């Protein structure tokens, strides 16, 4: 399964750690949301078929925030949007079967 991860709203220099099943943890440093688009960073992760149904977790160490989401089962691709809540007290994860769009 190909998982496209979009770091979206609310980032202002934070590091983000993504732990997905079967791959090395991914650390993204100094993320900053570009206000024209609402997107800070996008990356694609290739997961093996067994990842479906397992959990992906996202951690923002500086804000002591973490959140997890169950990966969809039996899909060739999925898109995960990660945002910081406006109050910066929670992570908002949204997973869908179509790409996100930005303008």
């Amino acid at each position, binding site marked *: 399964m190909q998982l496209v991860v*979009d770091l979206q709203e609310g980032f202002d220099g934070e590091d983000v750690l993504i732990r997905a099943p079967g791959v090395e943890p991914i650390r993204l440093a100094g993320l900053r949301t570009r*206000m024209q688009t*609402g997107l800070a960073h996008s990356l694609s992760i290739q997961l093996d078929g067994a990842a479906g149904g397992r959990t992906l977790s996202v951690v923002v160490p500086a804000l002591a925030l973490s959140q997890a989401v169950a990966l969809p089962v039996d899909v060739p691709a999925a898109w995960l949007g990660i945002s910081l809540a406006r109050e910066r007290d929670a992570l908002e994860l949204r997973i869908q079967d179509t790409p996100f*769009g930005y*303008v």
Partner: protein
Amino acid sequence: MSDDNAFDTEELLQDEAGFEEDGTAGPQAPAAGLAAGVQAPQPSGAALVAPVRLRASGLYRSRAGSGLLPFRRSMELRLDVDGRYPQSTASGVLRGGLQSLHWIASVSRIAANTWRGTLWFKDGATSLLPHTRVEIRVSGTLLRPRTARVRFSGAGASMTHDMEFISPWFDQVEFEFDQTDDAHPARTIGTHSHPNRPATLPSETLSIEDAFRRAGFNVSVAPAGPPVPLAAAGANSTWSDTELHDAMQLHWSRFDNRAQWALWVMHARQHDSGQSLGGIMFDDIGPQHRQGTAIFTDSFISNAPAGDAAPAAWVARMRYWTAVHEMGHAFNLAHAWQKSLGNGWISPLPDDPESRSFMNYPFRVAGGQTAFFSDFAFRFSDAELLFMRHAPRRFVQMGHAAWFDHHGFEGASTSPQPQLRLELRVHREQRRLQFLEPAMVELKLSNVSDDPVLLPVDLLEGGHHLTLVVKRGQNPARVWQPFATACHQPRLCVLAPAQSLYEPVFVGAGKGGWLVDEPGTYTLQACLHLPSGEDIVSTPLELRVSPPSQQAEYVHAQDFFSADVGRVLAFDGSRADVLDSAMNTLRQTTAQFGECAAARHAEVAVGMPLRQAGKLLRPGAQGAPEVHASTPDPIQARDLLESALLKDRHAAAATLGHIEYRMYAERFAAWLAKDAGDPPAAAATMRAACDTLRARHVKPEVIADMESFTQTIAAVGAVGAVEAAVGAAARAGTPRKQGEHERS
């Protein structure tokens, strides 16, 4: 205020042809602007004529003021009470002397053609307008143009301004649309082309321009060239932000490094980042933001949802919507759900995540894009219209306030229409410095008003009225502190209209250490605090420092970026023992990195003190200070200064700056003529310098001055004249003459 009721009883002025009435527009009204609204009584004897409605909304300016210039007041009024999407708002700019104030009031109709309200926003010299309330009365007849009488009250004596109607539009803006030959723009849209729409939405064909006309702008469109062929690009047919910015600078006929009501709109097939990016206001690069946008017509906006009833119409609507959305960013509009972020022009701005505005994402609202378009009336929200029509113009105008930020100097007391303009600039095509290259910038202060301005002569010198901040990437900004601050007898000079003052600044280092050293992007911004209390803020200047080109540069940087080297560079060298280490570092710079820009600065700093003996104050045998003379080395001085100034003249002028390059050339030439006894070499040096600066578009008057100097030093026996001519130029830190330098 007069209570005459002329407007209600006199004959009526017919509305201008082509303007809308009652907020409706259609193909028959292509010049649609702020629509009609103020109803006036039917003139007697015109029973068979339909009632004429006279719009009050629009731009008014005060009639010619009276009184002595410093005390003359003038005002501009924006009345927004009828027509298309009225905001029940009046705003204006009041000017008096060097000061100005932007005010905004919410108003409501209290009688025929009369509105009254409370001021809720003031920006600028509040002493100009201590009042809290405003009343506006509009008049007009067939024989007399529309006028407005504006009366302020509520604090102190009331104040009345009589205003003349100027335009139904608040501002004039020009769009230039370009496209690649593989793009599919939608410049117009039929509002009924897609069945999912508001039931009450009028059927009409809207252009992109119409969307902004309805926001109050008199839109003109520059003639478009033919589509840009992409054949030569090969497989690389997508665009990066940098490519778009470069294309804007080269291709856009109106591109300029200044704020202007003009916008470049590029339709291309796709961005480098792929399908997911439908458009971008890419211009957050460089000192002037928000001048260009791009729409990617073959991105996700060209993919209609599966099962959509009218997929072609859906795609056309998304392409049209995206174009207006991106252009809205160029007017400094944020996304609907981001209003509370950044520096709002009024704070705090509420987020509006469910708004049916061009600035919201259709797919972010509850119910998704279907819900959005079922209730979307092809318009901006009221809050966005309020901003575009009434915010201080520097927040809105393209190229003025940085994207998503109304101001770099929070709390600065600036005027929306200042008499002076401050620029920070460098004399090079790309704002990129080599690693180790000392950062030199030039301040230019111009009188952009029609009246002379009285200014302190030392206004641009560091340490007095000037604040200069340097920010690397996202690090905190640092204030540049000059190594020396001169104390002058307070004197004033007159800066005539269109004249400028200039001052070179070695901003790379100051008393606080090096500010521009490591590779990366730096943002510089300057603020001049005038004696009147007004602040003149420059637009930010972005500089990039390149990474080292070789490992040896990185190693050398550990010695180069020391406080002493910065000090020696600032003072054009030193003869003092205590700075020997710094001078040795600069000698090593010239020897090891002779082709680098840093070597030009080092050669000047090492070479200048070697021209002639200088005084050294040292402790004597008994501990008391004694004055010694340093030993000159004219041969080495000549070698170094020839290398610095003549070996690669354009590179030298670029890195030293035009003013410093001229000053060093004149000082070197004067020394050649007087001390080295070589007037022909002196004249040759000056001719080379003239040729260099002429080719770099320095003002003809400056070149003429230099040529005159050249003739003087070339003349045998004119040493005395040389000394006199060189005197001013040889004094480091002397304020530059008005209009000394200018690029074409």
